[in-house]
């Protein structure tokens, strides 16, 4: 299967950091099965269709708990995407007078909820700047921690440059200072092994629709086994199928954070995505494939496109996400030509991460981004390099 085989056309999809495409066949199969024959609302009734839906949600929690190294599957809180999970963690944990730390590589999904709290005069923020390679030093995080610091938020893998932070080292710093660590794993879940226990992560936000291969509308917050969930306030309140005689929100997990009907069909699809990844060869194979394509692209591009400019070396470009520019050309114009004239889907601009571009010196123009997925091939990269070579001469 390639990125164009499902569409049965000649298009090439290099925008997997936005959302992965195509989705594995098991994703569609599980979603169809759910819509055709399961369809019940989990935890709401004792009839067999509700129980079957509950079984699917439980299975998804169990697989995700295993994937991220949490023992209790109820500590997998189902959300609608990583932004939703990050908002639950940030707005749920911070209160007036608190200080929070984020890095200069954050996506707006972290920066905006924090800046909103700052704007309302609720909290103060320190932004720890990454090096010109996009790497944050754990010592700099340690230096930024003050008495009122209640949260450190770190982008694990950059959605713009593909660099990955040394989360274990940052985790040690946070553990020593007794400050909760929230990790945004939007770009790394399903690509880089994560163990919330050994990495000293308290809260981990992930999305289901990128490297895990699931559909949009899925994601979650992992609450590590040792983190006191009662310190987190729910973002939404409402029906949970439990404590129905009470008009107050329950205080146990996962119910207290999962008001309203879950995206059950999406969760069924996510389960299909995780199953596919296991059969594919696991996270290590995903990582190896993306790394191989990244190196292949760097080499082919440097050999054939005279005016190409990369911002980091391929050795530290870890998640199949590559940012570059053609000197003297607007990235958005190049992306448009790639789409219109060559059928190649890529994303140009600031990628909702202005601070990351400022850190790497690519603000405000931005970059052109290729993000490779498991279904991309070297042959597709050859076509893209030929296209870029022609465009760069124009």
């Amino acid at each position: 299967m390639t990125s164009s085989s499902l569409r049965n056309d000649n298009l090439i999809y290099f925008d997997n950091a936005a959302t992965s495409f195509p989705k594995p066949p098991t994703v569609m199969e599980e979603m169809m099965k759910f819509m055709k024959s399961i369809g019940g609302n989990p935890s709401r009734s004792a009839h067999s269709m509700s129980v079957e839906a509950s079984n699917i949600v439980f299975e998804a929690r169990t697989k995700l708990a295993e994937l991220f190294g949490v023992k209790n599957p109820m500590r997998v809180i189902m959300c609608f995407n990583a932004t939703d999970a990050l908002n639950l963690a940030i707005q749920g944990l911070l209160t007036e007078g608190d200080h929070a730390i984020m890095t200069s590589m954050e996506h707006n999904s972290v920066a905006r909820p924090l800046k909103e709290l700052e704007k309302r005069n609720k909290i103060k923020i320190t932004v720890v700047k990454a090096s010109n390679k996009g790497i944050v030093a754990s010592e700099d995080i340690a230096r930024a921690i003050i008495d009122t610091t209640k949260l450190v938020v770190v982008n694990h893998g950059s959605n713009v440059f593909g660099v990955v932070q040394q989360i274990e080292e940052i985790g040690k710093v946070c553990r020593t200072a007794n400050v909760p660590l929230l990790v945004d794993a939007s770009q790394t879940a399903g690509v880089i092994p994560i163990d919330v226990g050994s990495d000293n992560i308290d809260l981990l936000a992930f999305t289901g629709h990128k490297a895990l291969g699931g559909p949009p509308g899925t994601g979650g917050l992992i609450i590590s086994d040792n983190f006191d969930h009662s310190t987190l306030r729910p973002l939404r309140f409402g029906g949970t199928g439990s404590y129905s005689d009470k008009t107050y929100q329950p205080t146990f997990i996962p119910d207290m954070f999962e008001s309203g009907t879950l995206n059950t069909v999406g969760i069924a699809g996510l389960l299909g995505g995780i199953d596919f990844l296991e059969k594919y060869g696991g996270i290590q194979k995903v990582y190896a494939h993306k790394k191989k394509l990244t190196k292949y692209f760097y080499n082919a591009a440097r050999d054939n496109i005279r005016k190409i400019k990369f911002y980091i070396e391929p050795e530290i470009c870890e998640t199949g996400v590559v940012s570059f520019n053609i000197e003297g050309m607007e990235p958005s114009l190049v992306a448009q030509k790639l789409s219109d004239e060559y059928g190649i889907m890529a994303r140009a601009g600031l990628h909702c991460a202005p601070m990351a571009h400022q850190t790497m010196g690519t603000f405000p123009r931005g970059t052109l981004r290729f993000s490779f997925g498991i279904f991309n091939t070297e042959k597709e990269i050859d076509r893209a390099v030929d296209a870029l070579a022609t465009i760069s001469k124009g």
Partner: protein
Amino acid sequence: MAEKSIILYYSSNYAIWTSKLLHKRGMYHKLIPVPRHLSSDCGYCVEVRTEDVPIIEGLLKEYGVEYERIEMM
């Protein structure tokens, strides 16, 4: 006929978890609606054999499966 007991939960999610653990061990269990005289919850609970209760209690403790109480029927 063996005597039955019912495990009541704060959340149906834990009833499903119990069901999976018991299924894996081939132990009798049944997910049933919560009897109204026992709780006003709209979810479900797990019916088990009373004779299995001590083993099940140990299992739930081992895995950290939270439950409200066990009622003999």
